[in-house]
């Protein structure tokens, strides 16, 4: 049987991926260039008995998503830079309360209103450091329409498995371009559902670490009554200021992701086995980079591409290993230097790292990357 094929926009594929993953609630606020995600969800959710709501602002949309998820429903919101800034308050709330949810942030130029229709990759630091306090972050950066579908499914899986918010951040080019997509059959991609508590409502505690670093989350309305607060809390969910408990709980939340990096971190290696010049890129710019690497190979230069798919947790170990054998590393990105700092942190001076930065609303072209490969070879 031939599979269903379509020519779809990234944002549309993202919404369909969410539905495939079992998402049944969407709350959002219109913002370019992410709005198509909301439009598809508004159309499709009623068909599957889900609910869509357009809220009064970005903050409210993030709040509604957390509220809905607490009733056990997989929930999604979508936004772009300025909206992502507004969502940080309640994103932090989802982090400390450990409520699974998925946030799509289609990256556009900034800061502030910036360039609403122009592509950018400058929210990657905001995805980790945007909300105050310490917390782990999972952030996925797909590079194609097909991958925006599959990574949205994976985002829901990670959110449920690790009981945490997950962001998916296509740049505007990936969000808005159209490509051929082959829809996976139901059951073809894994879909992870939330682990229900195994204890009785009387003995349930929302942060009960006797179940490990990821305690099961009960659903409101299912017979389990518990308290959820954004204050630092103890295992029973009630606020505490006891130093030992607060320290232990914060460390557990970070540890639950750190210990799972091998499960979470994904990347693509292209022609890296003998590569002397390594290009590290993500999103649409990784596509420019691949084009440039192919051109370099045709010109006899041993170039390769390391494509980041999971941005947070950052692929530290893999990039450190590349630095052992490469002569030069190039980091092209649509910002004024963000990933390049992470890469430098990983390579610890073993190899020269240079960046190619653009924030003018134009993608970094294959020629720019190819020219740099020739310079640093």
């Amino acid at each position: 049987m031939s599979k269903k094929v379509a020519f779809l926009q990234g944002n549309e594929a993202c919404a369909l991926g969410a539905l495939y993953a079992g998402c049944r609630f969407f709350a959002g606020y219109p913002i370019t260039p992410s709005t198509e995600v909301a439009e598809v969800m508004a159309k499709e959710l009623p068909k599957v008995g889900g609910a869509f709501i357009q809220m009064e602002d970005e903050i409210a949309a993030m709040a509604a998503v957390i509220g809905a998820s607490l009733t056990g429903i997989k929930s999604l919101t979508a936004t772009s830079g300025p909206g992502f800034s507004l969502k940080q308050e309640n994103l932090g709330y989802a982090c400390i309360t450990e409520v699974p949810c998925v946030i799509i942030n289609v990256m556009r130029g900034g800061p502030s209103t910036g360039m609403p229709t122009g592509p950018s990759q400058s929210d990657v630091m905001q995805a980790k450091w945007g909300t105050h306090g310490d917390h782990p972050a999972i952030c996925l950066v797909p590079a194609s329409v097909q991958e925006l579908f599959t990574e949205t499914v994976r985002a829901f899986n990670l959110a449920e498995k690790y009981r945490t918010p997950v962001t998916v951040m296509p740049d505007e080019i990936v969000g808005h371009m159209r490509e051929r997509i082959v829809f996976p059959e139901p059951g073809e991609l894994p879909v992870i559902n939330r682990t229900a508590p195994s204890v009785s409502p009387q003995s349930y505690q929302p942060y009960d670490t006797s179940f490990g670093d990821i305690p099961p989350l009960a659903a409101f309305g299912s017979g389990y009554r518990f308290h959820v607060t954004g204050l630092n809390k103890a295992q029973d969910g009630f606020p505490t200021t006891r130093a030992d408990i607060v320290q232990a709980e914060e460390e557990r939340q970070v540890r639950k992701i750190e210990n799972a990096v091998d499960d979470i971190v994904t990347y693509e290696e292209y022609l890296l086995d003998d590569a002397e010049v390594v290009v590290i890129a993500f999103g649409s710019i990784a596509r420019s980079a691949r084009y440039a690497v192919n051109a370099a190979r045709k010109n006899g230069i041993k170039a390769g591409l390391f494509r980041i798919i999971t941005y947070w947790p950052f692929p530290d170990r893999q990039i450190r290993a590349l630095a052992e054998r490469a002569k030069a590393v190039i980091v092209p990105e649509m910002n004024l230097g963000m990933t390049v700092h992470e890469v430098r942190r990983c390579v610890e001076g073993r190899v020269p790292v240079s960046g190619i930065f653009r924030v003018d609303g134009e993608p970094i072209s294959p020629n720019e990357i190819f020219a740099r490969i020739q310079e640093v070879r």
Partner: protein
Amino acid sequence: MGFDYEKYIRPGKLPHIWCPGCGHGIVMKGLIRAIDALSLDKDKTAIVSGIGCASRLPGYMDFCTLHTTHGRGVAFATGIKMARPEMNVLCVGGDGDGVAIGGNHFIHACRRNIDMTYLIMNNNIYGMTGGQFSPTTPFGAKASTTPYGNPDPPFDIAKLAIGAGATFVARGTAFHAAQIEKLLIEAIRHKGFSVVEILDSCPTTYGRRNKFKSVVEMMNQLKESAVPVAAAEKMSPEQLEGKVLTGVLYKENKPEYVAEYGKLVTRVQESMAG
């Protein structure tokens, strides 16, 4: 035996954190009696709040409780109600939380007419942060950020709610303790967005700065300024000067959001079925 409040309170949570003379405890008791009178299922009832003194209320209550971010309680509650329409959703908070930082969520919940009850404990001040003026602090009153008197005119929360489209709006006071329960029973029964504003006392950060000798004086002021709506109809504008109306101020039946969305879902699914 008097009324058994502790049946609805989580074991070991009393005494609460509110200051001596703070009316929030009186309001919470009214809420508990209303819930009891309506026999709301604890497992199917969510109590949501934002941040502030009043927003600590859900932590005591043995229900599905959610203490959220400042001003956002109504938005979180909206997500719960949309995802689980069968749940009773109650939202509680104070004046700063509800109509300053949460003002946008408040007016839109009113407009949407989503089926939930929003209980606002209005003590005219930000208590938890130490007594800064709020959007309901009277003109001229002293607060830590209006040391020379408040130059900023206040909101009338009930009028704001009515103007924004809430379909049930009531006002009571912490002094009129028995009435709180009655207003809340009617509000929770109402299908749509219901707002109950309770004028409350903050002796610690408002009373002391504004020459109230004790909470008793604050309670007396609530007692004397409140005029039931029925009584007000027979009073002249002069007699009503400085008074506040209490009771059910507004009520109408309008399409409710969750029910309307449910109809939309049915319509879409029927058209798909052919």
